[in-house]
């Protein structure tokens, strides 16, 4: 029944169909990355192959389908494996942020009182600092590395889930059907797992699906600033960082190196757009009242 609803909803709405196609496309690219772009360095598949050490990027050719960026890194390889990395970062960070937020929010709502007060003020503290700045500070403290970048992103992303889940649990907790379950003799854990969570978790799931795109965008920003992926890593933010000096071409041809920016930029743009469009559809799909 849920399956029917998903497809019905996606087919009947053009924007969500576009989102679905975009995300599916990226998913296929990520899954078949080793086929699309055979691994050059078996120790680290995310290491982009380097044709030579020449500085200037080279336009698309038979050998480098999407051209090369600074220092002759292959853009095609970088974008394909960057897709895989984007999914890895987006899903891992969102998953852990969601999990931490769920636990903190549920504990705050369930126990209430002082526990609630302390946990919610903690989230306020995290909220008080602009998230990108905070992520930069944490990433810089831990050292530039993709894993550290993911930790930094998780650390700034969880409070919004905690707040959302807490609020939803508090409102669901007071509904009649929760009281009804109690008068049937249901145990606390049963009420929490069967009635409260299923009715309060979905708004956060929708936010999470929207967040995957946003997390990838923030990760790209950190990489661009040199706080994430290391040079040579197939990472979209990294590719844009390498294109920094080539945004403007020569005086005669200002767009000479357009591909260095456009290729990874388009990947990020379409990926984030896809998730945003799909997130909207999720909201309708996950509500049984909107069949």
């Amino acid at each position, binding site marked *: 029944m849920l399956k029917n609803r998903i497809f019905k909803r996606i087919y009947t709405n053009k924007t969500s169909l576009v989102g679905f196609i975009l995300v599916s496309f990226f998913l296929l690219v990520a899954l078949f990355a080793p086929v699309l772009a055979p691994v050059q360095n078996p120790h680290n598949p995310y290491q982009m192959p380097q044709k030579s050490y020449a500085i200037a990027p080279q336009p698309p050719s038979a050998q480098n389908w999407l051209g090369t960026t600074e220092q002759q890194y292959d853009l095609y390889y970088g974008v394909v494996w960057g897709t895989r990395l984007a999914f890895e970062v987006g899903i891992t960070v969102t998953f852990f942020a969601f999990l931490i937020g769920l636990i903190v929010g549920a504990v705050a709502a369930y126990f209430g009182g002082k526990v609630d007060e302390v946990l919610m003020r903690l989230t306020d503290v995290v909220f008080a600092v602009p998230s990108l700045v905070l992520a930069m500070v944490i990433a810089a403290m831990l050292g530039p590395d993709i894993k550290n970048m993911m930790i930094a992103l998780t650390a700034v992303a969880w409070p919004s889930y905690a707040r959302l889940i807490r609020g939803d649990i508090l409102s669901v907790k007071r*509904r*009649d*059907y929760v*009281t*009804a*379950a*109690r*008068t*049937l*003799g*249901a*145990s606390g854990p*049963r009420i929490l797992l*069967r*009635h409260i969570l*299923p*009715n309060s978790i979905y708004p956060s799931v929708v936010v999470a699906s929207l967040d995957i795109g946003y997390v990838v965008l923030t990760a790209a920003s950190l990489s661009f600033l040199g706080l994430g992926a290391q040079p040579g890593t197939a990472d979209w933010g990294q590719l844009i960082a390498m294109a920094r000096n080539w945004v403007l071409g020569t005086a005669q041809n200002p767009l000479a190196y357009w591909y260095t920016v456009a290729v990874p930029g388009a990947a990020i743009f379409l990926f984030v757009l896809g998730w945003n469009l799909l997130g909207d559809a999720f909201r309708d799909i996950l509500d*049984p*009242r909107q069949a």
Partner: protein
Amino acid sequence: MSACVEITHLYKTYYRHKWLFGKGSAVPVLKDVTLSLPQNRVLGLVGESGCGKSTLCKVLLGIEKPTAGTVLVNGQDIAGLDRAGRKKICRHMQVVYQDPYSSLDPRMTVRQLLSEPLDIHGLHPDKKQREQFLQDLLTSVGLAPSYLDRYPHEFSGGQRQRISIARALALDPQILIADEPVSALDVSVQAQILNLLSDIKKARKLSMLFVTHDFAVARFLCDDIAVMYKGRIVEMAPADELFAKPLHPYTQALLRAVPQVGRPLAKPLAEPGADVPNGCAFAPRCERASEKCRQAVPPFQAAAPQHFCACVQFTKGDVQ
């Protein structure tokens, strides 16, 4: 005739939330309620909004703890029961809620809703047997067995209330608490649900506490009626007697206020004034209130056999 629920001198006081320190001001909701639900009878609890009817139900169901007084269910004190004990009480005492739109989990199918009580209490574990039980249960409340796989939002208010009733009956309880089960429904649907409750009561030999603010509804279903005002029971009598000879001025005013076709509306009751700290709570609205009413809370005593009233104008033996 033994009582299956016995409430004695029950008090429930809420405290207003106070910022940071100490208890806020006290709001007494139930004051000295003594009530018993005889076996295999329907006791109607009538009163206006906010008089404490629903709080009484909550205390009975163990959702709220009484401030003072005792509640006995089948002779067992429900205060200080452990989880297992409370769970056992649940099997004997079930509830139908007022709002059929909020009392059913929107994410569960009818099958899941009806199976839940069985799962909790480990009844009918055999799959085939359970399926039969669920179908019979649904049929017994007047719904088709094919509805089992639908969601609550696919049903009308009356049908949802039937599902709620089926859910309450799944555990085969002896006592059913109905907290305004028809007040959220259309009048035409109310009659159907009342008939269903009446049939079920007869078929299952249920004892029922029926909470309502509607005398017409109470008259249809109840054997006895208790009238509540501001947290106190002010009058209690067998239904026929209460309708024939209402004693308490509040009961009389309520009965006058029931609209009837072809009769002009009764003069509405005065707005409730300031609380009377030591006297009859109804005194500010009472046409017959005297100074005496404001000095002491009138005792709740028998004015006739089976007929109790808390009004200074009636003392023992006043009514023949």
